[in-house]
């Protein structure tokens, strides 16, 4: 069998792969002083990878390869585009952080780009094997990234916890996948879907599906697979944390959505309850624990667990009807896009401020409004957006989530909706807590009364995320359209 290869369809991955090779080579060749150039190369490569995404989107045709294991449809493109842009913003955030620290530069970008490459593949993966490979390509570099500050015991700890839990989850998932394969006789998601659609799913198959989903629950940091999240987020370098909380999580969702919608969809009884429990537990535990955090990164970690729970809500009710499935898919995609912008923004602020205060404590935000009003304003915008207050983008994310719930309209769905509503209210407390520190508390004694100096690249990252959060909040059509178009192809 000589598989047909569509190079246009693979162009984003090819560009990314080429870039990471170039970065690696450049790192070897360039003298120490010139190493920062690697960041420039990486940035250019990422932006270049965005070009074929556009051309493919303009072209519009669904492309399928390897017997349906690798599909480039609008859904895949939406995710690819998203991952590439997130990578771009993360690169902007990393440039100064990495070059100012005593770290290897070229390798950092190489490893980061490898993970992005995995994500790009993940968008298209429609086969258990390719999903597994994509997932590991995403995850493995991030183990390394989490432990990047290798002389810092916290960084070590972050990495090992991440790794152990990650590998365990992989094992669970693989065990599940092996059983799924055994039951259905195929690794192709479409075949699995056909098998499940026949009805009378054997109990072992249900357990297998559950274990598979459990593996992704780790990636999307759903409770109870979340234990690594706060510890790893806190210990890892901040740009990496931002990357983990957005890109890595979105990768998990990309896989979860395709597995659920293409593979498991017909037997809703097998996967809906699992997702229901995961969603409810993630929202509730994430929010409640976040309430008591004093460290901003840990708070954001728990917040991202809770946000993951919100994203799971539409999935957990997607099986009720075709319209519910449609709005659930839209909701997940739109929520992810918006979540990406606001969470990256929040981490960018954390990094910007840490340059001044060298502290991750929420109390170090006191009085920010007095000496750096711009930064305080932007951070408030992100916090309120995460809380879901109109007219900042977060409201629309919550809105589409609730719309999916209402579309399903079963008692279970409504119950989950109520849990989500209560949780949205709880979430305010800790988001507003940060805002309160910035606006209401006086700056500590001896604070310099001049704005925090923010490097160019980081400011660009802030600007991009802020613009997205405000524009999408006022004119959600921008993202809504993407959500609507991003249908899963055949």
């Amino acid at each position: 069998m000589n598989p047909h290869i569509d190079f246009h369809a693979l162009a984003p991955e090819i560009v990314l792969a080429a870039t990471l090779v170039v970065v690696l080579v450049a790192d070897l060749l360039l003298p120490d002083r010139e190493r920062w150039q690697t960041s420039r190369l990486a940035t250019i490569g990422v932006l270049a990878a965005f070009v074929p995404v556009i051309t493919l989107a303009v072209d519009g045709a669904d492309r399928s390869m390897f017997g349906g294991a690798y599909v480039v449809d609008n859904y895949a493109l939406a995710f690819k585009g998203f991952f590439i842009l997130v990578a771009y913003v993360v690169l902007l955030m990393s440039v100064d952080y990495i070059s100012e620290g005593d770290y290897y530069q070229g390798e950092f970008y190489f490893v980061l780009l490898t993970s992005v490459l995995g994500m790009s593949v993940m968008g298209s993966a429609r086969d258990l094997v390719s999903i597994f490979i994509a997932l590991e390509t995403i995850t493995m570099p991030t183990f390394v990234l989490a432990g990047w500050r290798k002389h810092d015991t916290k960084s070590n700890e972050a990495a090992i916890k991440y790794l152990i839990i990650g590998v365990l989850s992989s094992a669970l998932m693989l065990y599940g996948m092996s059983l799924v394969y055994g039951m259905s006789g195929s690794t192709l998601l479409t075949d699995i879907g056909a098998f499940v659609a026949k009805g009378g799913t054997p109990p072992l198959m249900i357990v297998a599906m559950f274990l598979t989903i459990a593996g992704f629950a780790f990636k999307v940091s759903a409770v109870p697979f979340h234990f690594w999240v706060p510890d790893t987020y806190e210990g890892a370098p901040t740009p990496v944390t931002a990357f983990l909380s957005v890109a890595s999580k979105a990768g998990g969702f990309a896989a979860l959505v395709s597995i659920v919608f293409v593979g498991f969809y017909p037997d809703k009884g097998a996967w809906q309850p699992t997702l229901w429990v995961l969603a409810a537990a993630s929202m509730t535990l994430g929010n409640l624990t976040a309430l008591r955090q004093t460290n901003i990164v840990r708070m954001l970690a728990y917040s991202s667990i809770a946000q993951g729970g919100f994203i799971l809500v539409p999935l957990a009710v997607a099986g009720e009807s075709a319209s519910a499935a449609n709005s659930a898919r839209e909701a997940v995609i739109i929520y992810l896009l918006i979540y990406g912008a606001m969470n990256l923004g929040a981490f960018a602020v954390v990094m910007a401020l840490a340059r001044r205060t060298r502290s991750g404590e929420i109390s170090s935000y006191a009085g920010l409004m007095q000496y750096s009003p711009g930064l305080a304003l932007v951070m408030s915008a992100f916090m309120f957006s995460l809380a879901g207050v109109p007219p900042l983008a977060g409201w629309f994310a919550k809105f589409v989530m609730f719309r999916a719930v209402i579309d399903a309209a079963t008692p279970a769905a409504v119950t989950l909706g109520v849990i989500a509503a209560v949780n949205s209210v709880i979430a305010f407390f800790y988001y507003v807590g940060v805002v309160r520190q910035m606006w209401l508390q006086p700056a500590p004694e001896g604070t310099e009364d001049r704005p925090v100096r923010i490097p160019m690249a980081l400011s660009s990252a802030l600007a991009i995320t802020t613009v997205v959060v405000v524009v999408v909040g006022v004119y959600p059509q921008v993202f809504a359209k993407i959500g609507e178009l991003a249908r899963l192809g055949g």
Partner: protein
Amino acid sequence: MALNQFLILAAFLFGTGVYGVVARRNGVLMLMSVELMLQAVNINLVAFSAFLHDVSGQVFALFVITVAAAEVGVGLAIILLIYRNLGSPDLDRVEQLKG
């Protein structure tokens, strides 16, 4: 041999791995236990592949072996770092981050 026997063996192996992860404090041994779990998966895959007369299961198993090797590599590297910084591979002592 019946398929069930392979599956039971795999399940047993998997359970042993789980026990090892939970009970061991040494980082290297934990990694080994995880390796056991992955081998259980491989047994499953190969067994199914044989019984289904479908090659993709074996392909899958090859990938799993590769990835497992890589994972253990990264894991050992990190444990090495911890050993250097803390003077012990004992993961019980890695508990700075909590709450």
